[in-house]
């Protein structure tokens, strides 16, 4: 009768390779395959929408400056996190994020529910000189965000790239009308790529995020993005036990 000895694996490169691949693919299959099969992976919640052109530019600056190296955007379902940050994050809330900003490593606080917690003024002050408002902070200063004019010439291309991976920005009348139905006329106009630059400037005019109305700064975009984080879903409309059943 054939008796398996581990030595057989260790002394045969080809066999070792095949066995290693078999062991690894079990892990892959268990972790990945169910996401395509299980129906309840992602909650269906109201309110989640793509970012406006200005918010998207802000998000790109967030990534450019490496904010994600210290800040996660994922409130985990633990009591201490819920008390400090707010409702735990849902998968659906980052469905238009490419790439998502989840994470398990935090040097700074989690930012998934940051929107509306502080004033624009606070964000501007805090980004320029964090220790002037939070004395114990170890966050670097980002003074250039206020000085740099926002280069939004390529916002259309950025949105096209996101559209290619499934974000419902519109390039024609038909897609625009679909967005009107899904997100309302005001948002649909923001998501229309041919008007992206005008929409961006209009949002800066209306919001004046950096307190300086004379030009569009990178600060405008970043603060607009930070102020929308975690604000799209109205959790008062969702029964907590319904979310339990998605796990």
């Amino acid at each position, binding site marked *: 009768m054939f008796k398996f000895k581990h030595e057989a694996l260790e002394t045969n490169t080809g066999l070792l390779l095949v066995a290693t691949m078999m062991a690894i693919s079990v892990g892959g299959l268990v972790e990945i395959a169910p996401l395509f099969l299980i129906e309840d992976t992602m909650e269906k919640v109201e309110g989640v929408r793509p970012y406006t052109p200005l918010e998207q530019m802000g998000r790109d600056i967030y990534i450019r400056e490496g904010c994600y190296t210290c800040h996660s955007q994922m409130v985990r379902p633990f009591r201490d996190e819920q008390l400090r940050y707010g409702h735990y994050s849902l998968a659906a809330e980052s469905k238009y994020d490419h790439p998502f900003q989840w994470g398990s490593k935090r040097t700074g606080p989690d930012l998934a529910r940051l929107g509306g917690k502080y004033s624009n003024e606070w964000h501007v*002050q805090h980004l320029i000189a964090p220790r002037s408002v939070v004395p114990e902070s170890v966050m670097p200063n980002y003074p250039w965000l206020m000085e740099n004019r926002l280069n939004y010439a390529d916002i259309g291309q950025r949105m096209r790239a996101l559209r290619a991976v499934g974000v419902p920005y519109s390039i024609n009348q038909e897609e625009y009308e679909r967005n009107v139905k899904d997100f309302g006329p005001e948002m649909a106009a923001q998501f229309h790529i041919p008007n992206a630059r005008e929409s961006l400037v209009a949002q800066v005019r209306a919001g004046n995020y950096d307190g300086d109305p004379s030009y569009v700064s990178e600060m405008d975009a970043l603060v607009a993005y930070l102020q929308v984080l975690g604000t799209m879903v109205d959790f008062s409309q969702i029964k907590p036990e319904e979310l339990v059943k998605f796990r």
Partner: protein
Amino acid sequence: MAESQEKPQGPQTTGHVWDGDLQEYNNPLPQWWIYGFYVTILFALVYWIVYPSWPVGQGFLTGINTITYVNSQGQEETWHWNTRAKLLREMQEAAAQQRPWFERIAQMPYEQIVKDPELMGFVRSAGRALFTDNCAGCHQVGGGGKIGHYPNLTDDNWIYGGTFDKIRETIVQGRHGYMPPFAEALSRAQIDALAHYVLSLAGEPHDATQAAEGKNLFHSHTAACYYCHGDDAKGRQDLGSANLTDRIWLWADVPSATDVPSKVALVRQIIAGGLNRGNMPAWEGRLSEEQIKVLTVYVHQLGGGQ
């Protein structure tokens, strides 16, 4: 590398020899390690049975462990163990422990809460946690505020009022500070005169002649400062206009300026440019009604509640 010629004595080797005498042991793994390994396999098997584990078809093995929580209809509901169910139950258990406190706070009027030492113990600890998480970003730990940005909450000077009801209103709906710019309506000399008058009101060094001129302007229709700041320049809390007669400065750090011209410059900047800041977010919806009540009492008790 060459095959060994002799049969090795003592410990087993792999049979490989380098540099004539360098050999490699091939001892079996220690028994304790092997059994430790078997225990981890056993642990995994138990874990698969108790907790959600393997995917099966369109679902997964849910495990035999369950969690019971109360649903929104107030009925008990049991679901297989998962972190969300566990969180829901933990939140409900903690809320049940705090409920007696919050219920008493919700029913009692502010004046009575303050007189109840036991209840104030709860307000101080719960209030400090809430304040640190939500308010300290601007008003700083301890509520000392920051000149030029965020008002000090530990003194008895209140922009929008320091009564319980006014503090609650501020927390619930937020605030937005505004003063119109006067750069176009007034000349540079007029603004400077007003600045000297404002300095004189706060007991700062100033030019008396210019201050007298400023006083007239303050009460005139040209500048109409009195309209918001009041005839006595003590501010109007319904508008959130500053009291100019005390020595407390929020927007301009006048006390730190060393000479009169730089003090005047700081005040001039505000009169000329106006203010469109002092935005406090609204906390309604973000905090519960009881949490807001606890914070109201906490802030009132920081030092200067009225």
